């Protein structure tokens, strides 16, 4: 076993008797930014939940930050920042934006979880990254969908985790917010944080990715962008694949797979 931040070996996951991940293995060094792509139902969300120890594989070995997430799930989860794809947030619970972001910090504390000055500062800072600091006292349920996404990203960032897992966060953000998020992720990478981004399309995240992992129940491709991004390698997985020129750059459009 290596000292890498993520180590996955021969992992298979079954959900309701259906094999969702089939003996996948990969390692992630720290710091780096990995983009995970794959068609709908490829198992991307399942992969993130497996890393967090929420879903247990029936075979294989997983280490995150040197820990086994199925034995030390709570420990691992307290060290990892996570933005779920579908947030099943209850709009009946009237929490303010500030409280939602503080949740990301307080859940990592010991019982009673008193709020300190530093906690509020850290939460404010995380909101400020996403230009949402003026919404501190607004009710979360009264924000727009995109604004809510940004608050949930801030919640994951607030505790300044070593490892950040983002499940399809770019979709639903406007272009300006996407740009902001992109430079934010780049800044985090420079701060030696490791980030795993699950996305549907490679653009715009591809510009700052160190590696790309193409997943479709098993790992199809894993490597640096210039290795992976060739049409003959991607075409079998994405029959609708196109490349276009935009602002002088070559952009690969994977094409929606409505499975």
């Amino acid at each position, binding site marked *: 076993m290596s000292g890498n931040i993520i180590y996955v070996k021969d992992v298979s996951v079954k959900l309701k008797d259906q094999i969702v991940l089939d003996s996948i293995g990969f390692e992630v060094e720290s710091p780096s930014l990995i983009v995970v792509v794959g068609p709908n139902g490829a198992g991307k969300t399942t992969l993130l939940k497996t890393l967090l120890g929420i879903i247990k594989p029936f075979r294989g070995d997983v280490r995150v930050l040197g820990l086994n997430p199925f034995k030390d799930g709570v420990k691992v989860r*307290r060290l990892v920042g996570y933005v779920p794809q579908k947030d099943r947030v209850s709009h*009946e619970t009237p929490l303010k934006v500030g409280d939602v972001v503080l*949740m990301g910090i307080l859940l990592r504390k010991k019982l009673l979880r008193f709020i300190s000055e530093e906690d509020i500062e850290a939460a404010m800072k995380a909101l400020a990254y996403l230009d949402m600091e003026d919404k501190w006292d607004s009710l979360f349920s009264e924000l727009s969908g995109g604004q809510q996404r940004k608050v949930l990203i801030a919640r994951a960032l607030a505790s300044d985790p070593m490892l950040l897992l983002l499940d399809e966060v770019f979709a639903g953000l406007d272009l300006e917010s996407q740009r902001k998020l992109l430079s934010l992720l780049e800044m985090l990478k420079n701060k030696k944080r490791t980030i795993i981004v699950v996305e549907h399309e490679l653009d715009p995240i591809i510009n700052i990715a160190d590696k790309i992992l193409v997943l479709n129940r098993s790992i199809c491709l894993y490597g640096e962008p210039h290795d992976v991004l060739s049409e003959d390698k991607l075409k079998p997985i994405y029959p609708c694949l196109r490349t276009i020129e935009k602002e002088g750059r070559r952009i690969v459009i994977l094409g929606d797979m409505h499975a």
Partner: protein
Amino acid sequence: MLDPFVLRAILGILFASLSTPILVIMLLRGSLYITPEISHAALGGAALGVLIQTCFPALSDPFPTVILFCVATAIFVSYTGRGSQQSLGTMISVSLAISVTLYAVIRSCCLPADKRVLVDGYLISDLLLLSDAGVLNLAIASITATVITLIFYREFIYICFDMDAAEAFGLRVRMYDLLLFSTSAVAVAVITRAVGVLLSVTLLILPVAASSIITRNVGMMIISSLIIAMLSGIMGIALSLQFNMPTGGTIAISSTILFSLTYLTKLKKQ
């Protein structure tokens, strides 16, 4: 000077009201509707408690058995009904059936006539019959529920707001959810003791529902539901003394009146 009966009744209802904060959290959890069902478990618990008391006269009050039975029911329902809303509904009905059957069988087959009154006191209760020990029991139970609510307030609120994320951030959501259900079962037992199973729904649901009409701030909801529950109780005892009715019924009437007033005020404002 207050008559000691009246004083005990007032103390009883004040302590019963003290257990409403956890019910506010159950509302946010979307599970307040199961509390009247848990209240029916109190019947089974009361029958069992009186039976134990008949066999072992040293155990003077069936209330601890009632609490245990309610908590066990809540744990059973939340554990077995975890999968879906449908299975939750099924398990609630199952536990309801068990409690009512237990009540019917023990009451008619195992209890002497003079003990049946004790069990029936849980159907429609009269706080004016409360003993000193009864007040003490209510106080201990509701203060326990309140302290647990205060200590684990954040955990409970996070579970209500976003259970998946709370789990992904390292909270032991299963454990805290069980604690939330168990604590509300204690609150249910207390309120059931105060007004009886048949009318418990009024004090379990109406003050909380009224508070959610008044405000959307969780802290304010807790305070206002507490005040509404206390007002209902005091009004109920006053009415009961005036018209010589059991307090259970008059407290139910007052809380219905207070809820209706809140609702109408809200309608008028819109």
